[in-house]
């Protein structure tokens, strides 16, 4: 199902800065990222590492100012997103790429009914849809709500977001994002704002729908278990850098970057060992990021070179010849610690 040749979406060397009072925050630092046709890609990393910013930049919905893009390219279906006209952008959004936002309460307009918002999304989803009359739009909206297993959709259409529960709001958001029949669906930590049982339902629903419709899919999350279940390939992001990318199974069995290893260790296991200490330290200051690797300050294996230079990306060949890349000097021949790899065997 995954087309290995054509990237649907490709990001090259993208940087994003936020110009704020007192300086410039270098939030994204030359990141590379791609999604193949039909592929399900995960993006993991701590809160505040730039996952959402990356997605908002793809859709060009970051408020500018304060945000600015000093360098980089974004290609979607062979088109350069950065040079798109307003019209082309509107065409790409919705039908080409659509997005489920992290917090459904913030992502729904509080003063319009679900129906008003949903029909607006459907109306502008494609040129044909603009000719739909109100009754047809309403029918399509009902369909979108039924699809996400919401009971009594007729009533829901006339409800305001405040009248719905968190889980219902997230379902509405998912229904809205899918109502445009997008080629690529981005889900930004769906369910993080919900309690665990509801979160599980919502994710299961999302997984089913993506499977059913065959959308390409980007899942942003910091819950590793979800990534393992729902994606083919995973990117690991740290403080505005892409630090590692690998096929999902491989990443979980053989994480290479010290940060990825730390992330995996931070997951509590049923088999004992208790809750880990987590990764000591915190995300560096975006205003004055370290000159070298941004993780060097927290890295248990940091070497002198890590503080001086930004690590390039090293391709590591996996057993099945799957592409596994990591931005860490530990995998550069001259620095390689002879028995380091031995420590990296799956737990």
């Amino acid at each position: 199902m995954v087309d290995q040749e054509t990237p649907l979406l490709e990001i090259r060397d993208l940087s994003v800065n936020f110009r704020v009072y007192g300086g410039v925050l270098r939030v994204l630092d030359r990141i590379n990222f791609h999604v193949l046709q039909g592929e399900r890609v995960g993006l993991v990393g701590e809160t505040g590492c730039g996952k959402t910013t990356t997605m908002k930049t793809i859709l060009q919905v970051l408020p500018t100012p304060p945000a600015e893009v000093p360098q980089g390219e974004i290609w979607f279906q062979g088109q350069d997103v950065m040079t798109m006209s307003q019209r082309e952008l509107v065409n790409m959004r919705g039908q080409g790429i659509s997005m489920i936002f992290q917090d459904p309460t913030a992502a729904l307009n509080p003063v319009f009914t679900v129906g008003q918002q949903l029909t607006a999304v459907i109306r502008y989803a494609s040129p044909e849809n603009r000719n739909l009359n109100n009754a047809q739009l309403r029918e399509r909206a009902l369909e979108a709500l039924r699809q996400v297993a919401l009971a009594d959709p007729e009533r829901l259409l006339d409800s305001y977001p405040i009248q719905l529960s968190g889980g219902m709001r997230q379902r509405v958001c998912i229904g809205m994002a899918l109502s445009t029949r997008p080629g690529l669906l981005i889900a930004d930590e769906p369910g993080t704002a919900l309690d665990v049982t509801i979160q599980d339902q919502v994710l299961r629903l999302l997984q089913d729908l993506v499977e059913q419709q065959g959308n390409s899919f980007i899942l942003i999350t910091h819950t590793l278990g979800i990534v393992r279940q729902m994606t083919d390939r995973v990117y690991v992001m740290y403080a505005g850098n892409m630090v590692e990318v690998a096929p999902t199974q491989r990443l979980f069995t053989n994480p290479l970057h010290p940060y990825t290893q730390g992330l995996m260790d931070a997951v509590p296991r049923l088999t004992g060992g208790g809750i880990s200490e987590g990764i000591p330290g915190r995300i560096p200051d975006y205003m004055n990021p370290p000159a070298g690797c941004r993780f060097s300050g927290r890295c248990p294996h940091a070497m002198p070179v890590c503080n001086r230079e930004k690590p390039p990306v090293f391709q590591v060949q996996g057993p099945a010849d799957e592409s596994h890349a990591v931005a860490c000097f530990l995998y550069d021949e001259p620095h390689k610690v002879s028995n380091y790899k031995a420590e990296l065997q799956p737990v």
Partner: protein
Amino acid sequence: MNFLNVEELQRLFLFLLRRIFQSIFVLFGLSILIFLLSRVLPGDPARMALGARAPQETIQRLRDEMHLDEPLLQQYQIWFTNALGGDLGDSLRTRRPVVDDIVEFLPASMELVLLAGVISAIGGITLGTLSARHKDSWIDNLVRVISYMGVVTPAFVVAIIFLTFFTTAEFGLDLFPPIGRLSSGFEPPPRVTGLYTVDSLLAGQFDTFVNALHHLILPSLALALGSLSQEARITRSTMSDNLTRDYIAAERALGIPERTVTGKFLLKPSLIPTVSIFGLDFAANLSNAFLVEVIFNWPGISRYATTAMLYKDLNAIAAVILILGVTFIVVNILVDLVVGILDPRIRLRGARSD
């Protein structure tokens, strides 16, 4: 509009009833306050009305007529009973029922305040939207400077500036008539509402309408400038705040065109604070009109009130303050209604607490 169904209309009606019921108490309190204030002021109203050389017995007769020598409580009781029957007493200066005076002068002020309201609402929201859409650009900076100036400049100063530069060729342009509601040679249109512009249209006298509007523009613009600036500032700040909300990013991300996002999904939530401020400004403009009316020689209620205060014309003062109070209450009820219609959160919360 499809967002108000029968159930919500019912709720709106109940809300209205409740607010009107509450206002009765507010008005009752206000009546006590204005009654006391006008009585405790120093000076003998009868003496002032009749002049320094009036004989003592004439003055005593007027004092008896006005029950000025009765205890305060009894005076209030008399005034209140009469007021309930629609009789607010006679004016000491114009020597006729205060109600007649108000019916004559209020429409002129209302016309002024209404047009000022329209100007400040349309102008303020437009400027605020422009400013927010082009945040930190030269448009935004220009609007901000102008609205700061508008907020700090009192209406009467603006009125004097307008009068100087836009009514005579001597200093500026002879664009507008300097005083009054109609040029000489024009008859007031047959009275229906008392608003010359409306009445002239009703009577089909188009020339009179143009002339009345021509007279109206300058004073109402002078009056509107302060509230216009205030609304522009509020709209700008709410809107630029809302622009960074996730729901705006989400609506854009889902392919809704910019025009619809700004003109519909951003505008509606951003108008809510503006409407509340607008209501306060609108009612306040009725009293801000005092000096504007004097400067433009506008025969309105504010000018009437100014003279009433100088002459200690008790009944007139009480009546005018009562009118201002009623206007405040009515406008605030309207504002609450509009805000309720704009914001379901308030509407639904209100219903829940019932």
